[in-house]
């Protein structure tokens, strides 16, 4: 099923209530041509299951990896991605845009 930002927040609540460890990633800022608008969500649980999208697939892998750290230490953080990054080929936005993503744990 295609997850919308509305169903994602519901799923985040359901997963947490089921006792799973969950992080929520949200696009908080975009520059240039970014694939997903501000406010887009990605919800991740400790086993690596995820729902939603913050970049249409470009940087999801890195966001998920960082989210697992957030689930561990509980410290919310802001991630930034763009072609200017040294990691451009590994996790850059081929569209040339830049995005900032806020990742927090659901407590």
């Amino acid at each position, binding site marked *: 099923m295609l997850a919308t930002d*509305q169903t994602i927040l519901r799923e985040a*609540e359901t997963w*947490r*209530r089921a006792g799973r460890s969950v992080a929520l990633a949200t696009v908080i*800022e975009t520059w240039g041509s970014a694939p997903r608008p501000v406010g887009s969500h990605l919800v991740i649980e400790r086993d690596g299951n995820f729902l939603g999208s913050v970049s249409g697939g470009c940087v999801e892998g890195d966001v998920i990896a960082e989210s697992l750290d957030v689930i561990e230490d509980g*410290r*919310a953080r802001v991630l930034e991605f763009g072609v200017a990054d040294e990691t451009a080929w590994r996790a850059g936005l081929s569209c040339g845009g830049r995005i900032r993503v806020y990742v*927090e744990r659901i*407590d």
Partner: protein
Amino acid sequence: MKLDNLAALNAERDARRPAILVTDTADGSQRLVREAEFAADPLAEVFRERLLSGNSGLVEIDGRSLFLTVQVPPVRLLVIGAVHISQALCPMAEALELDVTVIDPRTAFATPERFPDVALLAEWPDDAFARIGTLDRYTALAALTHDPKIDDPSLIAALNADCFYVGALGSRKSHARRLERLGEAGLSPEATARIHGPIGLDIGAITPAEIAVSILAEVVATLRRDRIKGRTAGKPADCLRHDLDA
């Protein structure tokens, strides 16, 4: 995010009430602001603009970077008439993530066989509206029965509730007759001018599916343009003409 805040956001959405979550991106502190609390909040003016656009985003307040998660109710589409066009329209509306309900008191039309997996109410519009809750400015209504007994009451209810989109199927001639009837029923010309009639963008649609595309394109255009121009909120719902000297 505290689970309480997440649960409250979901509950507000279910109740079709707007809500805003304010997150300090530096220290992670958060607070949820509900509709009833908007006006008295220190960020009231910022909230007002955000609710009009429906867009989440960062704001700088006193050197702090705050992210506002703006949640407005899901857009609802009420289709009056379980007709051929509606059958083509429902799956398309679902793909657009509209929350669709089909209403038609004619039980021969409103059958689950004709509308699998669609919220369907075989009732008169006013009874159906009472059941599904208040119409609001996040609601669109398309009257498609061609029958004034069914279409007219639904149009009146939609205009009075300030639904963001109100459309009615029918030729220019039948639309002119409709405007006369609604005028006699007490609606002002300003109110009835909000009805999109003949319904849909003019794309030369012929088949039911093409007409469905033209209707949904018009709904999307109205929704997006209204939001961009910030016109969806704050309008009084006094569409009924009150003739005090009558």
